[in-house]
């Protein structure tokens, strides 16, 4: 079985490498023409692909998946179309260093079930812009819609002159095959978007990988915030595609003095506060008790479906279920990440305690991902940013739509959000085309005058200490 899988992997990578060889010769104009063609084709199918993904996965809201597809095509294209990714991309006349962009080679792109077609199109665009062939490995729960997105993009790429096999898809099969692909010597990079296990497997493969981390996004509503505005934004974000974006809000924190106002606003805007008995019911269906992680049966589901699963009666039109766990950690299951319209809610006695709650939430499985503050107090905003370990600190912004960039801020639009070393990633950036290039630096001779005018024999005189040497080294004759 394994030998057979190895042969299949060899065949795919052989094709990908041939595509890489051809792609390497393309100039910027040819590359950009392909990217434009793929953007248009993907964009034109945004609605159909969204509906397919929704139908196949049973997750989210198709209209919101349309918006994700728009982000992944139109906004990603807008952000990369004028970027130089071929040949000399920069020259610094002062240092004499020229930078040349080179493609990496075949990229294995792992696609999550939560954002399938959008992540496929996003990764294809950034790979093609950097002249890298891409091999899509989709989640088995979204293989049909991903295959359709791949077909559309590939045909568009070929029609614009792209190399044959520049986009391939492996049938979502066994974990063994994915691991064989990840560890294959001809893979240049793995773009791993998915759960912790998958990302760890990618990093353990021996090949370079860009991964993501899990989120557990705290939202601090400061006393200076516009509370109705904050609540409206939180709801629009947490209900976006039923909370499937890993940057979606997980817990709301505030000081006691504004608690009643915040609760009233959430209630006014059709959110439902669970009783402790109801909270226990939701815990049972939303969290896998053995692992403490979220249950797949609630991911991307509506409040109504979740209520039915938990045997709850909630008012019609309820947008979000809000629980009030008494603490944060393993003993309080709803304090962790749940990609569904369920929020935890904490009221603290004072500002310091509220920030401590946010720190605890942040460190409960969401280090390096995203955090949010609603405030009009600049000092508190910057203090919050300093205290939280998050790649993205979103200010007065819905986190789902804010973290992915370009909608509410000028972050690069991306469906792969780096979480830094806290999330076991190499970067906190929103991954885009520039992360998929090898940059060569041509370093022309620009002698360091200080070095050459300094009497280097002094380095061998042990009696001279750092201060003696430095004074002499910087002497301006």
């Amino acid at each position, binding site marked *: 079985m394994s030998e057979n899988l190895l042969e299949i992997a060899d065949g795919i990578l052989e094709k990908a490498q041939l595509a890489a060889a051809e792609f390497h010769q393309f100039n910027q104009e040819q590359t950009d023409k392909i990217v434009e063609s793929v953007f248009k084709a993907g964009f034109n199918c945004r609605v159909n692909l969204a509906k397919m993904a929704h139908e196949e996965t049973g997750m989210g809201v198709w209209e919101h998946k349309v918006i994700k597809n728009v982000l992944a095509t139109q906004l990603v294209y807008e952000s990369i179309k004028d970027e130089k990714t071929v040949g000399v991309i920069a020259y610094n006349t002062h240092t004499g260093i020229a930078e040349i962009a080179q493609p990496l080679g075949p990229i294995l792109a792992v696609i999550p079930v939560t954002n399938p077609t959008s992540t496929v199109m996003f990764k294809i665009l950034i790979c093609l812009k950097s002249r890298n062939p891409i091999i899509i490995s989709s989640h088995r729960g979204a293989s049909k819609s991903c295959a359709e997105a791949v077909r559309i993009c590939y045909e568009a790429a070929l029609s614009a002159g792209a190399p044959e096999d520049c986009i391939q898809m492996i049938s979502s099969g066994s974990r063994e095959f994915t691991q064989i692909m990840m560890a294959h010597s001809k893979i240049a990079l793995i773009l791993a978007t998915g759960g912790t296990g998958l990302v760890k497997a990618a990093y353990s493969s021996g090949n370079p990988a860009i991964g993501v981390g899990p989120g557990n996004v705290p939202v601090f509503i400061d006393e200076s915030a516009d509370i109705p505005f904050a609540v409206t934004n939180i709801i629009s974000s947490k209900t976006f595609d039923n909370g499937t974006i890993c940057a979606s809000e997980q817990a709301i924190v505030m000081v006691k003095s504004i608690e009643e106002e915040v609760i009233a606003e959430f209630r006014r805007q059709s959110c439902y506060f669970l009783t402790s008995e109801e909270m226990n019911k939701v815990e049972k269906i939303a969290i896998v008790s053995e692992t403490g992680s979220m249950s797949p049966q609630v991911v991307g589901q509506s409040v109504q479906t979740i209520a039915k699963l938990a045997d709850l009666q909630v008012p019609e039109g309820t947008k979000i279920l809000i629980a009030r766990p008494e603490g944060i950690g393993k003993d309080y299951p709803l304090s962790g990440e749940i990609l569904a319209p369920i929020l935890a809610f904490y009221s603290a006695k004072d500002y310091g305690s509220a*920030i401590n709650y946010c*720190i605890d939430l942040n460190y409960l499985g969401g280090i390096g991902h995203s955090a949010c503050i609603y405030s009009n107090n600049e000092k508190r905003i910057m203090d919050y940013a300093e205290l939280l370990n998050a790649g993205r600190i979103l200010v007065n912004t819905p986190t789902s739509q804010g973290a992915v960039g370009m909608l509410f801020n000028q972050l690069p639009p991306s469906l792969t959000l780096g979480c830094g070393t806290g999330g076991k990633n190499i970067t906190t950036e929103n991954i885009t085309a520039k992360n998929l290039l090898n940059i060569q630096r041509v370093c022309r001779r620009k002698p360091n005058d200080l070095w050459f005018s300094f009497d280097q024999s002094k380095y061998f005189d042990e009696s001279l200490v750092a201060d003696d040497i430095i004074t002499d080294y910087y002497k301006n004759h």
Partner: protein
Amino acid sequence: MVIFEYNSTEKAITVIFKGRIDYIAAGELNEIIQTEPLIKNRNPEDKIIFDIGEVEYIASSFIRICVIHAKQAGSGKFSIINCQPFVKKTFKISGLDEMLNIS
């Protein structure tokens, strides 16, 4: 600066710290804590609580002191209270926050 208090109802020794606990201060504080009769003659049932509400900086040597006292106190008998966010983050980064039972 350090103050010791004993609550016989709660069976808890509270050690209240103030100010900046750098490497030198941590060493001095350790001396004071080790020789404090309440600590030296502590009943095994007594809890030890470090109140660091007015502490603005902690050196790694202070975290080590906390760990030593947490171990000496025994499971569930040691806690740190009233942490300022900056100090809380410092404990989080140390990775020792869970064993030190910080609130």
